[in-house]
């Protein structure tokens, strides 16, 4: 069984970090994982995306044309990837910045105002963690406990940021209900 999710947004939204936290959680749960960033020529404020592959078998191709799920943090990302997602996949839309939807009927669309929720939790910059938590709660790609632990590990060197991010995580989970 293999699962893939594309995280996409603009540079500075913590896209690569969200992917890394998920990949780390899946690794801790004993899965094979691969985290593949976009590293082409990009400009500040331009697009940023990464693909996380989680599998119970060794991962073959790290290039995946049609990922199973999508987390879209801004409108260009949704427009770029929505049509490529496999039918039945979860598409998380950051409705704080995206007013449109995928226009597809065969996806599990989840609209979460990640920006507002993160601001309420203490800092709008944690929108990526809100979106990540809501996505994981809906897709169940990893357990929420593993995700929580992975956030603590990621911020271990800046422990003052842990409470904020855990708060963002809980709020994200609630938003997915």
């Amino acid at each position, binding site marked *: 069984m293999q699962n893939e999710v594309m995280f996409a947004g603009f540079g500075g939204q913590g896209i690569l970090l969200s992917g*890394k936290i998920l*990949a*780390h959680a899946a*690794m801790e749960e004993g899965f*094979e*994982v*691969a*985290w*593949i*960033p976009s*590293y*082409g*020529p990009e400009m500040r404020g331009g697009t940023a995306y990464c693909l996380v592959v989680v599998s119970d078998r060794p*991962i*073959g*191709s*790290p*290039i995946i*044309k049609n990922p199973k799920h999508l987390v879209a943090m801004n409108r260009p990302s949704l427009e770029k990837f929505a049509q490529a997602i496999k039918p039945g996949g979860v598409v998380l839309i950051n409705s704080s910045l995206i007013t449109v939807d995928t226009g597809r009927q065969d996806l599990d669309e989840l609209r979460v105002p990640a920006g507002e929720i993160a601001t309420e939790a203490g800092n709008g910059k944690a929108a990526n963690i809100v979106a990540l938590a809501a996505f994981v709660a809906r897709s169940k790609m990893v357990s929420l406990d593993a995700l929580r632990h992975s956030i603590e590990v990621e911020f271990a060197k800046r422990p003052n940021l842990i409470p904020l991010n855990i708060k963002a995580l809980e709020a994200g989970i609630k938003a997915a209900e």
Partner: protein
Amino acid sequence: MSKVLMKGNEAIAEAAIRAGCLNYFAYPITPQSEVAEYLAWRMQEVNGVFLQGESEVAVSYMIFGAAGAGVRVFTTSSSPGISLMSEAISYLCGAQLPAVFVNIMRGGPGLGGILPSQGDYLQATKGIGHGDCRLFVMAPEGVQEAAEMVMRAFPLAEKYRNPVMILGDGLIGQMMEPVEFPDHLKSVPSNKNTWATNGMDHRKSKTRNLVRSLFLDSQILNNNNLILRDKYERMKKEDVCFEAYNTEGDYRILIVAYGTMSRVCKTAIATLKEQGIDVGLIRPQTLFPYPEAAVREAARKESCRHVLCIEMSMGQMVEDVERSVLGARPVKWYGKCGGDVPTPEEIIELVKSTLALHKSY
């Protein structure tokens, strides 16, 4: 030791330290700059040396100096940077000095692009520098194997007193995967007192060691080249490495691919298997010495009708595949470069269209 999630570039950097290499000289270039970024702080922790040269040419002669003094040393770069180092690599071969070079390939020719490519295959395996010189070349297909190959590279370089290259591509450098650094791959530098210029007092010797690649006497130069040739022949006998995948049963198509490309092929092979089509794969792990016998044997299997060589280049390794198959089966090349990696879907289509050519069988 538990696994950690690391970028290929970071894992390469850490693996070198675990292998006991405390000397790193480099000049940054995408897509491998994270190696230098990582070692800029990590070398301090282990009392090692990291020095950023003013150019790749300077770096390559820092490598020459350190290798001549008998210490483990390595550098990392990407395609155009490796071209600049090629003169010194030839000097290292001529002077029989061990060193490790990592080339995280990007698209070319010229300044090219920064996306993954396998366009330096011929350079690495056949034309790394002037004169009769060869590199020992290994190609990993993922982060774990990249780390292990770096750890193996140092003792191999010392065994042959010859530079060793790890040939990866941008995807392997940039991708994060779980990695561990096996303790059994740690090694201690082999005896260098017979050749290194590490000081006569230091090795309690009265004979002088001389490191050089200049031999003006034709006989002496010829003898030096014979010594090198013997080493390259020994590499072919003792250290060829490859992976055979799905080759136990019958298959009508054999794929030969390495690095990132072989992973993509494995996904295609798994999908084809579900559809009842068996395809074998030989994945060279050493590109020089090349697993000629393995490719030849797999191609000559009775069920096999066609050999496909798939690369992220305009057709380079295919020359070695043809040389190995020796006309026993038709060999077809397929590839792309510039950063577009052929997808599993493309390979499935290629296999099916090739099979259609052999319907009469």
